[in-house]
Each structure stands twice: as C-alpha cells, then as structure tokens.
C-alpha cells in the first residue's frame, strides 16, 4: 500500500511539473511578452505597454478574427455532426469490424497532415478528382471553384481535425451504460427522446472535449488556409504566424494569442455556467 502511495504521488508530481513547465509557464511568458514593446534589434524589450492590445482594435484584425471564428465554428459543428454518429456507431459495435474502423480513423495520423492537405488539392482543384466525377455523372457541367475559397479551408480543417472529434466522443459513448438506454426505452421514451434526454447529456463531456480539440486548432492552424485558401484567405493562425515570423513583432503576436486564449476560456466558462443553469430548470 505504501509503495502504491509513493508511486501515486510521484507520478502526480511529474504531471504537475510537466504542466507547469510546458503549459503554465509558456502561457505566462506569452502574457508577459504581450505587454512588452519591440524594436529593430530586440525581439522583446522594455518598457511595458498596453499598445499591442490597443493595436488589436483595428477593423482589419477584427474582421480576420470574426472570419476565423465563423470558419472554425462551422468546421467544429460539421465535425460534430459527422463525427458523432461515426463515434457512436464504432463505440457500440460488438464485431471485429470495430477495431478495423478504429484503425481507419487513426491511419491518417501516419501521414503528415501537411502532405494530406496538399493531397486535398488534387481532389478539389478545377480539374481534380471531385469535379471530374461530378461532371462524369452529369451532376454539374462546369467545374466547381472550391480550391482557394473558404469552403476549401473548411474541407481541409474538417478532414484534418475529424479524428480529434471522434476519439473523445467514442471513449465517452463506450462508457455509456446500456442499461440506462434500456431504462429510458422501458419508461416509454422513443429513440429520439432517449437520444436527446439521455445519450446527449451523458456524452456531453466527450462532445465538449472534442469541440475544444477541434475548435482551437481550427482557429490557429496556419498551413491549411495557406495551402487550400490561397493568398486571400488569412485566418487568425496566419496573422499570428506573420507577426512572429514575418513582422518579427513578438509582443504583437503574443497579444493575439492572449486574446484568443481569453476568448476560448470565456467560451468554456459560459458553457459551464449555462449547463449548470439548465440543470436547475425543468425540461419539457
């Protein structure tokens, strides 16, 4: 028992140390950097200033913020709509197909996401596989202009991030007690009610985890808008990348990151607050 406790506290302290060193500390450094100024010779320098945040209040930046938000939001929603049934079906499967399907979800991870994004070009470009197929079947007569639009960016985001939605939901559904579903049916709930009142609330942690895991990279991943969205499509990720790598303005880039984090934390807090309020209200 004693060694057990030692092991427990040791592994816990390793995790704490890791989180402190590689999550909390960098985050604090970003906040600090965002409050500094910069000049030609130094990336970061004194004096401290709020100027970086004041610069953010600029219509171009705000438009990019809004656009990133909408694109990431729609992509997350679509990932949820596609990923949930998929995760649910895999999780509830009994047969040996289960591990095969799970493998299919994971296989894309074996190839760099950069390469897969380039590969997407071959599918959605004007004379690509998708357009050729649609024309061959007589569904359209002019090729669809998908590449270098926001649609292309969303397709790329969904394709790359879907596993991050599927895996947490799947884990959650697997832990779902079949007897609760039986009990709901027994009490007169049809499939839809069972799904809405029992399955969705009980898998909510998975849905939230998946949504966060998709939404956050969708906001900031910069190479997908670069590759699939073309020059016009600048998203928040590109903006941050430009500040750090092209303008060499680290404090400004840090300010963007800090605001992004703040918005995401606010979103999560709002969610927590809303669900807590919901539980007190009665549903009908």
């Amino acid at each position, binding site marked *: 028992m004693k060694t057990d406790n030692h092991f427990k506290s040791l592994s816990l302290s390793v995790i704490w140390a890791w989180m402190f060193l590689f999550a909390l500390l960098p985050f604090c450094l970003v906040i600090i950097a965002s409050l500094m100024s910069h000049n030609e010779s130094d990336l970061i320098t004194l004096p401290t200033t709020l100027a970086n945040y004041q610069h953010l209040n600029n219509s171009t930046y705000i438009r990019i913020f809004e656009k990133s938000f909408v694109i990431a939001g729609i992509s997350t929603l679509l990932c949820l709509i596609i990923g949930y049934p998929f995760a649910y079906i895999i999780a509830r499967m009994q047969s040996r197909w289960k591990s095969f399907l799970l493998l299919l979800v994971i296989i894309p991870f074996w190839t760099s996401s950069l390469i897969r994004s380039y590969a997407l070009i071959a599918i959605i470009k004007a004379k690509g596989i998708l357009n050729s197929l649609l024309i061959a079947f007589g569904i359209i007569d002019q090729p669809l202009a998908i590449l270098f639009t926001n649609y292309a960016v969303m397709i790329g985001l969904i394709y790359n991030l879907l596993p991050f939605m599927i895996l947490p939901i799947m884990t959650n559904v697997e832990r779902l*007690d079949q007897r609760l579903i039986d*009990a709901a049916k027994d*009490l007169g*709930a049809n499939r839809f*009610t069972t799904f809405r009142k029992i399955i969705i609330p009980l898998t909510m942690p998975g849905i939230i985890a998946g949504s966060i895991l998709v939404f956050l990279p969708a906001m900031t991943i910069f190479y997908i808008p670069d590759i699939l969205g073309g020059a016009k499509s600048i998203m928040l990720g590109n903006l941050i990348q430009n500040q750090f790598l092209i303008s060499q303005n680290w404090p400004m880039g840090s300010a963007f990151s800090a605001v992004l984090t703040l918005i995401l934390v606010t979103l999560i807090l709002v969610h927590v607050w809303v669900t807590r309020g919901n539980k007190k209200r009665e549903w009908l």
Partner: protein
Amino acid sequence: MVKNVVELRGVYKSLHDHEILHDINLEVREGEFLTLLGPSGCGKTTLLRLISGFETPTSGNIFIDGKNVSGLPPHQRHVHTVFQSYALFPHMTVFENIAFGLRCQKVPLPEIKERVANVLRMVKLEKYAERKPSQLSGGQQQRVAIARAAVNRPRVLLLDEPLSALDYRLRKTMQIELKQLQRTLGITFIFVTHDQEEALSMSDRVVVIQEGCIEQVGTPRQVYEEPGTLKVATFIGEVNIFAGEIMSTENGKHVTLRILDKLRKAKSTRPCTPGEKVHVVVRPEDVRVWNLHEVEDATDMFTGTVEEVIYKGTTVDLIVRLADNTIVAATEFFDEDDDRLEYKIGSQIWVSWTPGWEVILPHED
C-alpha cells in the same frame, strides 16, 4: 374470477442455436407478487426481458391484458422494469428521474408534480426530490428506481434481482418494504431472484425455473412442502433424499414404503403403484432423533451415528451417518423442557420422522 395480467403460451427462446427457454406456459394473476426463482443462467432474466419487450421469443405468444404483444417494443408495453443496477439517470435529480416516464407520455406539468410527490411519499423520499442519484444510499436508490417505474401506473412491474446489490441487513429490510409497497401500490410484481429464502418470504406464488423449463408453480408453501420434482426439492431448502420402493397401496394415497429395509407407512399426493421405485424427500426439520435409551419401539426407525453437531442459536443441526452410509441432516429446535439436545459426536441414535411428512417423488437418476 381472477384476471390474468400476463400470459405466456408456448414460449421458446433460443440464442445462437442454444435453447434458453423451453415451452414456457405461465399465467400471472392481477395484483399478485410472483417470483421467478432459479439458479443463475436458468433463463429467468431472459423470461423477464421477453415480457418487457427487450427480447423477442423464438416462438410462442405473450399476452399483456389479453393483448398479444409480440413485436411491440418496450416503450409501447404497459410494463416497467426495475433493473438490477437500478439504472437511474445520473444527470437527473430524483424528481426528474421519476418524472421521466410521465414526460414521455406528455402528462401536463401540474399532474406530473402531483404524481411524483405522491409516489415519493409512498417510498418515503419526499425530502430527497432534488438530490442526484449519486447522493443517495443503495436502499434509497432502490426506492427511487421502484418509484420511477410505479409512477407510470404500469399493469405489471418487473423486478430483476433488485436486492442483490444490497448487503444482507438492508436486503432483509427491503424485502419487507417491497412487499408492503406492492400492497400499497396494488400493482402486479414479477420478481426475479436466485435467493430461495427471498422468494419464499415475499411471494404469493413462486415459479421455479431450472435449465430453461418451468419445474413448478405454486405458493411458497406448496413448492417447499410439496415439491413436484427432485430438482425443486433440492433447489429450495435442505433435503434428505432416500431411495425407496412402494410395497403396497391403499386407495392410492396411503402407501407402504420400503426404505433401507424398513417398512414405513406414508402418504402420497400422487397415485403410486406397488413395485414402483421412488425417491423419498424429508426436510431436516421434519427429521427427529432419539437417544437409544429413549425408544422402546424402533420398528420404523433407522439407527445412525452422530457425525457432526452444529449449534446455530435457535436450532441444533445434526449430521448423522446411517448404517448403509447414507448421510442424514436433522434440525432440532430448542425446547425449554427438553434436555434431549445433548448429542455427542460418535454416539448412536435413532432417526425417524412422522409418517405423512415425507414427499414421495418418482425415481430419477
């Protein structure tokens, strides 16, 4: 005439070429507490799931209130199940759990509130309406599970080993509570258990199931005192089994038996023919023992050696080895005026029982 709430006619159930239930015919009467009793794996839970609609019979018909329910899904049947693990919805309060079924039926809110409050009062949990299931004890969760089913006023409540998760003491209390609750609610209960004591103490009628077949249906007293087969006799309570032979009969009921070279008078509830091989079943509490010097006429008694004396507080259990090595268990109740219960291991005694207290069953191998 008493109405049948549930009827099963020639129900068979197989799964992967394995027969789980064999030719089940059963009538459940209005308002009764019926127990399906059998060892684990005998098919009793499957039988319950057939009635609730979670499984469909391979052949045969099930009637609820005279209506054939074959093919009806669980939510369209007027029966509710209390699951073994209670299956309370963890994200809902006690109130919401109980109101779930009513909400599915679109009952207006004021009526929901009233009915939930009523049923909460019945299970004595008025103060716990706003708690989450995880904040309740096992016994309280159990009561919520019953309330959640009972609030919908089902024709039949199906209970799948609802007490097996509780500790011994709580189980005893819940047995009494369940029985009282069933009377208050006036709902037919079909209760599944492998615990014969539970079955005997709670039920109006017991259905003994063994290896997918109904062995016997009867009141607790009938299945205990007049077991229909050797399987029922050995499953319910302790028994001593003797091989015997019918020597002669007198108008079919009064017979003379030969057991271990002794001739004994006996009563049989079923017709016997002379020369028939039988098994004779005697409950330990019906077996009487005497010290050698106490007995003058030992013509229908067996002599034996005390092998073990087990003191149990209210009773003393004796394990006796007869002359032909048959082991007999005898349970003797304490009697204030009786000092006969002093038995020493290894001492010689007489063993017998009152003629007519044995059960004569057909010979089985």
